[in-house]
């Protein structure tokens, strides 16, 4: 199994806060060691490897994870808690999961 993490930097060169938070969380949990490659999606450069991967896999969120297993098509995870639960077999709390969803979901239509 090969895992690629794609994180984003903004067009002005500043790092994506959410990507940094997730990376830090993974570092603290010892999960970063399970990542084979980290690739940058540079919003100012559509030819950056991360942007190309986002286009290839029809992803519009960051960070995201590409999980490749022999003989299988790549699996894409845009939700961190799903990735760590399903791929890394790690535990996450409901509070953490809800907090992550809250960052990605607009609530005014509910």
């Amino acid at each position: 199994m090969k895992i690629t993490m794609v994180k984003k930097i903004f067009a002005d060169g500043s790092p994506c806060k959410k990507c940094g938070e997730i990376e830090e969380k993974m570092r603290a949990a010892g999960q970063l060691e399970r990542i084979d490659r980290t690739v940058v999606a540079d919003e100012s450069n559509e030819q950056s490897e991360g942007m190309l991967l986002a286009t290839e896999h029809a992803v519009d969120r960051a960070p995201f994870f590409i999980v490749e297993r022999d003989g299988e098509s790549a699996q894409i995870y845009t939700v961190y808690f799903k990735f760590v639960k399903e791929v890394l077999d790690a535990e996450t709390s409901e509070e953490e999961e809800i907090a992550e969803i809250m960052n990605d979901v607009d609530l005014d239509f509910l």
Partner: protein
Amino acid sequence: MSSITNIVDIDSELATQSPQEILRYALENFDNIAISFSGAEDVVLIDMAYKIRKDIQVFSLDTGRLHAQTYRFIEAVRNHYDIKIDLVMPEAAKVEKLVKEKGLFSFYQDDHKECCGVRKIAPLRKQLLTVDAWITGQRRDQSPGTRAEVPVMQDDKAFSRPDDSLTKFNPLANWTSKQVWDYIRANNVPYNELHDQGFVSIGCEPCTRPTGPGQHEREGRWWWEEATLKECGLHAVNISK
């Protein structure tokens, strides 16, 4: 159905179709599908869906903090269409804990996320575990900053069951507020009386206010929080659309 390629392809095909055609596709391809009804102008979805299939499943998140007018409206819709509307409520213990620790209006000091997490997201997650697909009234014009690319059909990774897929339909994605209201008037669809009082976007009572001429509807929601762009999206600045 659940592969990314399929969903992207079907989304592209549906993107040019009317809300009714998108709804028809959704209702004909998923038996276990539910409409999320907020108690506002997304009532048009119920009207459109009811004309396609009478046994539609509808649920509303009852946060416990909705306006009395919204509760009356939900009841009016239930009676008008003679349908069941499941009111999905937050877990009492979690609400009690939040209120005990932080009071009834903590969102004005912190932000709305903790309260919405307890009152909306947790019950929504539980509800969505029971369906294969859901339908929302999300429109692109509701929040140009964060919702400019709402597809009409998407693979909902945030709320899907473990190792399973959940499909989300946004049939009104390409419609404007004006088109929604034209439909409501042309079809005599019941609507929330708060709209006549200047409310455009309607949510919980403490977090919703009327908007004035020229104000965007999002200015009527969580107005005390700094308007910040969500930063998780990927947007190449030099990609020509």
